[in-house]
């Protein structure tokens, strides 16, 4: 844990360095959740504002789980709003669905899926698809634990759940992702 910054200017520079170092991964994480870069940018900006306003005065050693906690909270809020919006839209779009052609709506069983895309060399895109297919909590557990490198306790603090829940989410996430990716070796 680094020493606390000596002055306000030092502290501001330290906060900026921390945010600059985390922002790209934060954007990608938000993008995996929203599937949209503009929405992801909004979430990251909100998270930065929330972090600076509420937590930047805390010791630097606490910043990482606190920042991811704010982003996690914003992401969950976004999903809640999407669910409510989806409910309203589905109510209004019932008539449209009734007119949909059942043949075009049927799943394409010949579609290669993320595994085949990975075999074609688009590994990054396949991984992104696999991550997006995960449930929100499993994806967050995987990204915070495996990519961001938080330990179990810090991941639990960021996700506001127990350490046991983190382990369960991570176990399931790894099992799902492995299924996608091991087939491409």
């Amino acid at each position, binding site marked *: 844990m680094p020493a606390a910054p000596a002055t306000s200017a030092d502290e*501001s520079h330290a906060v900026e360095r921390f*945010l600059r170092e985390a*922002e*790209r991964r934060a*954007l990608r994480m938000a993008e995996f959740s929203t599937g949209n870069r503009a929405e992801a940018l909004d979430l990251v900006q909100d998270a*930065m504002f929330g972090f600076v306003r509420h937590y930047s005065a805390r010791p630097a050693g606490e910043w990482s789980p606190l920042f991811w906690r704010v982003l996690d909270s914003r992401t969950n809020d976004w999903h809640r709003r999407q669910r409510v919006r989806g409910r309203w839209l589905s109510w209004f779009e019932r008539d449209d669905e009734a007119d949909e052609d059942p043949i075009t709506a049927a799943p394409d069983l010949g579609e290669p899926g993320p595994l085949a895309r990975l075999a074609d060399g688009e590994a990054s895109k396949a991984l992104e698809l696999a991550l997006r297919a995960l449930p929100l909590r499993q994806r967050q557990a995987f990204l915070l634990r495996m990519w961001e490198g938080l330990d179990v306790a*810090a991941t639990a603090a960021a996700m506001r759940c127990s350490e046991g829940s983190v382990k369960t989410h991570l176990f399931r996430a790894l099992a799902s992702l492995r299924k996608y*990716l091991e087939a491409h070796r």
Partner: protein
Amino acid sequence: MNNRLNESSRPNELWIERAVALLDESADALDAATLSSLNRARQAALAQRRPRLSAWMMGSGFVGAALALVLAFGLRQHPASSPMSAPVAIEPVVDADALASDDNLDLYENLDFYAWLDAQQQDGNG
């Protein structure tokens, strides 16, 4: 500050390492427009730390200016009610003039005599 170095606690599997490498690449490959947006967002967030003091000072300045305006307006509307009213300021000046001259002091002390003398002269003329 960053817990990313905590590699020893990760499951040591090749496919996870590959996945993490791919994720790092995707974060490093963000386009310039996106990086610019991130930079603006960061600067805007950090700007919250700076205005705390200046906003407080600006607020105090506004309050001070408003009080000065109210005070000036009140003095203009009610000048006589001011504790620094004119009679208090002028009377000492008159007294000072009277005390400054010996002639004037004699005049004030013998005012009755000069009034009687003036009346005698008028009777004599009449």
